């Protein structure tokens, strides 16, 4: 029993850490550009498929190379999507709704492309670390530890970027006051595209990390989109710290509900918790009005 509960807690922590990475990305786009990206889940699958393709290349045999190659691919892809699909809409009336529609279209296009190219059968990635720690019945795989630290490391790196680099400062400036940012000469359009690209890397990396445990499927991103959205709304739209807390709460809830009631109950419980939270605090855990 104790061992079982420890396993559940560990599973909650590890999933929570990856969710946190992905939710921070989603809340980043919303916080900076007030745009909602419906294709976010498909970018998760894209990350997994990119890693799958890279492992198919003969000279790639470790995750280090996969990360080194996948990050720039995702970065360029995200930048390109923002510039070609999202940015042209921003000048129009009701652009927020139009961005939702076009990213929804992109999600369907990507998912169906995955199906055509890779087939509907699940793909798996090799674990990036073998072995584990053992103590009696207790077992903790190196892979899980690695996933946890990579996700947390990604979030810390991102936080460092926001607080200590000039580009990071301009991202915060645009999020806090777009008009003020324009006045001091920050190229707003570039910041929008850069944040979109960074968030694409975050969710794509999440895809690579989780695909080792849960497989890659063409439609697998929807589950992630829903969870990242629940976490973002739960934590407070645009609040990074709120998103972090919410991600771990959701990871834990999911693990405990899955273990006690069965996996089919997890989404139901998640939404019940979200709705209750929003009924009491419509702005989410740490969100602000407006």
């Amino acid at each position: 029993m104790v061992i079982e509960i420890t396993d559940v807690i560990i599973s909650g922590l590890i999933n929570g850490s990856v969710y946190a990475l992905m939710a921070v990305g989603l809340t980043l786009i919303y916080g900076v550009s007030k745009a909602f990206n419906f294709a976010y889940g498909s970018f998760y699958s894209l990350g997994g498929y990119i890693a799958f393709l890279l492992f198919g290349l003969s000279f790639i045999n470790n995750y280090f190379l996969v990360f080194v190659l996948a990050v720039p691919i995702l970065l360029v892809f995200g930048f390109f999507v923002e510039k070609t699909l999202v940015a042209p809409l921003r000048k129009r009336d009701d652009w927020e709704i139009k961005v939702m529609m076009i990213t929804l279209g992109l999600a369907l296009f990507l998912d169906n492309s995955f199906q055509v190219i890779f087939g509907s059968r699940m793909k798996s990635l090799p674990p990036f670390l073998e072995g584990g720690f053992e103590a009696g019945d207790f077992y903790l795989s190196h892979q899980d530890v690695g996933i946890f630290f990579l996700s947390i490391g990604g979030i810390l790196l991102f936080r460092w970027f926001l607080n200590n680099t000039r580009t990071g400062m301009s991202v915060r400036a645009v999020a806090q006051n777009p008009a003020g940012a324009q006045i001091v000469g920050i190229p707003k359009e570039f910041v929008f595209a850069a944040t979109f690209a960074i968030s694409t890397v975050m969710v794509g990396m999440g895809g690579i990390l989780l695909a080792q445990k849960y497989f890659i499927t063409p439609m697998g991103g929807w589950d992630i989109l829903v969870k990242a959205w629940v976490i973002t709304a739960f934590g407070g739209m645009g609040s990074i710290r709120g998103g972090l807390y919410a991600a771990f709460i959701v990871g834990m809830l999911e693990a405990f509900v899955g273990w006690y009631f069965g996996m089919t109950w997890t989404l139901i419980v998640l939404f019940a918790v979200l709705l209750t939270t929003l009924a009491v605090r419509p702005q989410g855990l740490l969100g602000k009005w407006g």
Partner: protein
Amino acid sequence: MIELVDVNACYQDFHVLKNVSLAVKKGQIVVMLGPNGHGKSTVLKSICGLVEKVSGLIRFEGETITGLGSEKLVGMGITYIAENRELFPQMSVLENLKLGAYSRSARAFEKENLEKVFDLFPRLRDRQSQLAATMSGGEARMLAIARGLMSNARFLAIDEPSLGLQPNLRDEVAKIIKQINGQGITLLVVEQNIPQITELADTLYVLEEGSISFEGSKEDARGNDHLKEIFLGM
């Protein structure tokens, strides 16, 4: 230094500026008056690249700058200081000032300008780590002006510095504007609640319904009955 010839500006379908022409010479303080909502801010924003639909001719030191965005113009030395301040609320005073020096050309002078700004506004030096959101109206106004100075601008467009300011601080604002001008910075100021600023003006313009209705010196303005009617107490 700045020259506008037949400038028109629109917000969506609303035609705000109609054939506005004006000139600000190097080292001058030019003050623009006029009723609220008649386009004074739009003149400043059009010069500083903050209005999307602008046509006509805007020149800065002989170079045509019509249609250039603020990210280019700030680097050239043209900066707007907003009437509603437009600070970054969740950032410290120091971060706000550093962002004022965002443009490439200002970065090299960041330290130097920071000292200048702190000499001009000693209170900001003491409050470097305070969040902008927690400052009083007067302090926030000082910070907005200071942030504008950090851009190393040679031309500043200052929009209603008296807005939201206690009356006893108006003298101070006028003094600061004089000091800024003394550092060799050319100024175009929209302000009509501070007579001391009007007194500093080399040239006055009046903007009514999107068009310039008066151009001249303070003395000309005093002799103009129509102006007396609009701006009592001048």
